[in-house]
C-alpha cells in the first residue's frame, strides 16, 4: 500500500482537475442546449466522439493541431445545426421526451457513420509534438498536455462567459432560457437563435473531443460512457446553468480521481451515487433554478 503523502494527494487533485476540465466542457454544451431549447441531447457523447475523429483527421490533413482546434468545432457545429433544423425542430411542442428520443436515435447513426468513414478500430491519436513530455510540478511529474488542456478549457469557458454576459446574442440566450415566449414577442427570430445555440453546444462537444483525443483511445464507442458521465455532471451542477456545469465538472473530476486513489473499485459507482444523492436532496442541482422542468 502506498502512503498518502501530501504530494500524492496534491498530484491526484491536479489529475482530477484535468479530468474535470473535459467533463466541464461537455456539461457546458449540454447545459446550453438544455437551458435554451429544453432539449436533452442524447447525442452529445456522439458529437464528442465525432469531434475526436475529425480532430485527428484535420490535424493529419493540415499538419497543425491549432488549426484543427479551430476547424473541427466549426464542422461539428454545422452537423449539429443540420440536425437541429431538420430533425429536432419538427418536434418542439410535442413534449420533452421526443427530442430526447430523437437524439438517442441520432447517436446510433453518428456512431455508425464514423465506423464507415474511419473504420471500426478507431484512429491512433498522439499528443502534438510541441506539447509532449511531462512537467515536474514539485509534487511529481504531470503531463504537459493535460496542463495545456486545463488552460484551454479555462479560456473557452471565459470566452463563453464573456459572450453570454457582454454580447447581444448572449443577452438573447439569457432571456430565452428564462422566458422564450417574451423573447419571441419582442421580435427576436427565436428559431434562428435555437439553431445557433444547438450548433454552439455541439461545437463545444466537438471541441472537447479534439482536446481529449490525445489523452485516450479514439474509437466509435468512446462516447457511450462519456454521455452517462456528462449527465451526472449536468444534473449535479443544475441543468441549464453554465456556472453549475463548470463547478460540477471539476467536482466530479476530483471525486472520481480521489475515489480512484482511495477505493478504486468504487470509482465509477461513486459518481452515480453522487448523482442520485443530488437528485434526491436538491433535484435542481447546485446552481439550477428550482421548478425548472418540474
Amino acid at each position, binding site marked *: *500500500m*502506498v502512503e498518502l*503523502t501530501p*504530494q*500524492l494527494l496534491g*498530484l*491526484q487533485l491536479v*489529475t*482530477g482537475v*484535468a*479530468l474535470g476540465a473535459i467533463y466541464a466542457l461537455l456539461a457546458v454544451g449540454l447545459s446550453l442546449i438544455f437551458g435554451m431549447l429544453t432539449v436533452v441531447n442524447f447525442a452529445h457523447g456522439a458529437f464528442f466522439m465525432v469531434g475526436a475523429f475529425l480532430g485527428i483527421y484535420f490535424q493529419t490533413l493540415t499538419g497543425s493541431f491549432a488549426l484543427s482546434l479551430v476547424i473541427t468545432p466549426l464542422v461539428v457545429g454545422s452537423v449539429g445545426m443540420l440536425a437541429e433544423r431538420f430533425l429536432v425542430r419538427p418536434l418542439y411542442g410535442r413534449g420533452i421526451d421526443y427530442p430526447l428520443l430523437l437524439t438517442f436515435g441520432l447517436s446510433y447513426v453518428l456512431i455508425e457513420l464514423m465506423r464507415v468513414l474511419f473504420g*471500426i*478500430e*478507431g*484512429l*491512433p491519436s*498522439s*499528443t502534438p509534438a510541441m506539447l*509532449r*513530455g*511531462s512537467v515536474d510540478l514539485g509534487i*511529481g*511529474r*504531470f*503531463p504537459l*498536455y*493535460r496542463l495545456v488542456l486545463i488552460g484551454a478549457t479555462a479560456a473557452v469557458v471565459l470566452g463563453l462567459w464573456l459572450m453570454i454576459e457582454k454580447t447581444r446574442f448572449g443577452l438573447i440566450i439569457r432571456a430565452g432560457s428564462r422566458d422564450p415566449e417574451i423573447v419571441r414577442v419582442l421580435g427576436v427570430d427565436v428559431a434562428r437563435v435555437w439553431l445557433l445555440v444547438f450548433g454552439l453546444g455541439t461545437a463545444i462537444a466537438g471541441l472537447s473531443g479534439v482536446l481529449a483525443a490525445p*489523452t*485516450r*483511445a479514439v*474509437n466509435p*464507442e*468512446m462516447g457511450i*460512457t*462519456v454521455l452517462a458521465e456528462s449527465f451526472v455532471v449536468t444534473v449535479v451542477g443544475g441543468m441549464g446553468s453554465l456556472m453549475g456545469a463548470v463547478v460540477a465538472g471539476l467536482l466530479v473530476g476530483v471525486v*472520481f*480521481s480521489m475515489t*480512484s*486513489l482511495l477505493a*478504486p*473499485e468504487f*470509482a*465509477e459507482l461513486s459518481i452515480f451515487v453522487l448523482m442520485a444523492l443530488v437528485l434526491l436532496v436538491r433535484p435542481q442541482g447546485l446552481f439550477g433554478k428550482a421548478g425548472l422542468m418540474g
Partner: protein
Amino acid sequence: MSTLIPAPTPNPEHSTSHADQHADQHAAPQANMQATSRRRLLQAGAAGTVLAGAPFAINIVRAQGAPIKIGFPTPLTGAFSAEAQDQVRAAELAVKEFNDGGGFNGRKVELLVRDDKLNPGEAASRTLELIEKDKVDFIVGSLSAATQLSINAVTRERKVIFNSISQSDAINEAKDWSPYTFHEALNPHMTAGAVARYAFPKYGKKVVYLTADYAYGHEMVRGFERAGKALGATTLADIRHPLGAADYSAFLPRIQALKPDILVLCNFGRDLVNSAKQATDFGLKESTRLVAPVLLFTSRVAGGADAFEGVVGGTSYYWGMEDSIPAAKAFNDKFRRAYGGAVPSDYGALGYAGVRSVLQAVVNAKSTDSDKVADALGRLEYNWYKGNQFYRKCDHQSVQSIIIVESKSKGMKDKNDVFSVASIEAPSESNLRSCSELGHKG
C-alpha cells in the same frame, strides 16, 4: 462477405421451380432455329421431368451430399471487430482448404458466420439460432470470455461441440466445462505465466499491476503472481480500474509514487492502448518497464509505435515467427496467397486452427456425430501453424507454445513489422493449472 448470408439448403420444391424456369428460358421459338430449339426444349423438358418427378432421389442425394455446417459466432461489430474479421478470414481459409481437398466423403463444409455483437445475450441467441434453425454440426468462435461462456452454456445443454478461440480461465473449470467443450486459445493463466517467467528475471522484482476489474483481469494477476512467487517477485500493489475506462490519469500518480521495476497492464485491447498511452504521457517509462500479458497485433497498430515503445507482452501467434518456425511460414504463405499479401494476426491464426482441428477430427472419426468427433478431437495431435499441439484430457485445453514479443518503434520494414520475437516458450502441461484445481475428477 458471402458467408454472412447463409447459403440456401437444397430443397426439392426449389429444385422443381428452378427446373421450370430453365425450361422456359430455353424454349425460344425461332423459325430457322426450330430444329435446335425444339431439341433443346425436349432436353430441358426431360431434365425438368426427371428432377420434378424424383423428389425422393433428391432427398437421398441431399442426405449424402449435405454440407457439414460449422456455426461461427464472433463480434463483427463492436470493439473487437477488426480481430473478429481476421478470425473469419482465416476460418474461411481453413474451410476452403478442406473443401478443395475433397471434403469429407464428398461432403463440403459450410461456415455460417454470425455477429454476436460482443454481447453475451446476443451470443446465446445466435447460438440458439445456429443450432435450432441452421442445424449446425459444430460451433467454433467467440472473442471474449463472457461470450464464449455464454455460447458454451447453450452448446453443452444440447451436446454440440464448441471449440472456443479466445481467452478464458473459467471455461476450463469443471463448473462450465462439458465433454463437448474445447479450448483452442490460450488462457490467462498460461499467458501471464509465460510473460512473468520472461520479464521478472529480466527487468526486476518489484511489480505493480494495473488491472481491469473483471474476471479476465483478475485471472491474469493470479497467473502472474503464481509464476512470480517462484521467481521471488513482490507485488507492490494491484490497482483495479473499471473495464473500458477511458482515462487512467487517476491511477497513475499513485503508480509513480510506488516506483516499481515493472508495471503490468493487466487489461486487453482498447484498455491496453489507452493505459499504455497515458502511462507514456506521465513519463512512467523512464523508470519502469511496461509489460502486458496479451499484446494484440491490431492493438499495437491502432495504438501506434509511440505508446507501445518498449512494451513487452505475450501472444499466441505473430507472423514474424516464420523466420524460425517452418509451420508458421507455410501458414503465412497460404494466407498471403488467399488475401493479397496480408498476414494473419494472432486471433486470425486461432480462427484457422479452431476450424481445422474440428474438421480433422471429423475425418479421423469418420463421422459427424458429436460424441465420436469429441473423442477424436480429444486425441488429436496437430501442428497447423506454430508447432506441435494437443488437447489436455481433463479439460480439453490446447497445450501450445506461447510467444513473447517486444514492440518495435524503429527499423520497421513495413506496416506489419511491429514486433520482434523475444522468446518462445515451448508447450508444456506444467504451464496450466492442475486438473484437480479446476475441479475435474480423475
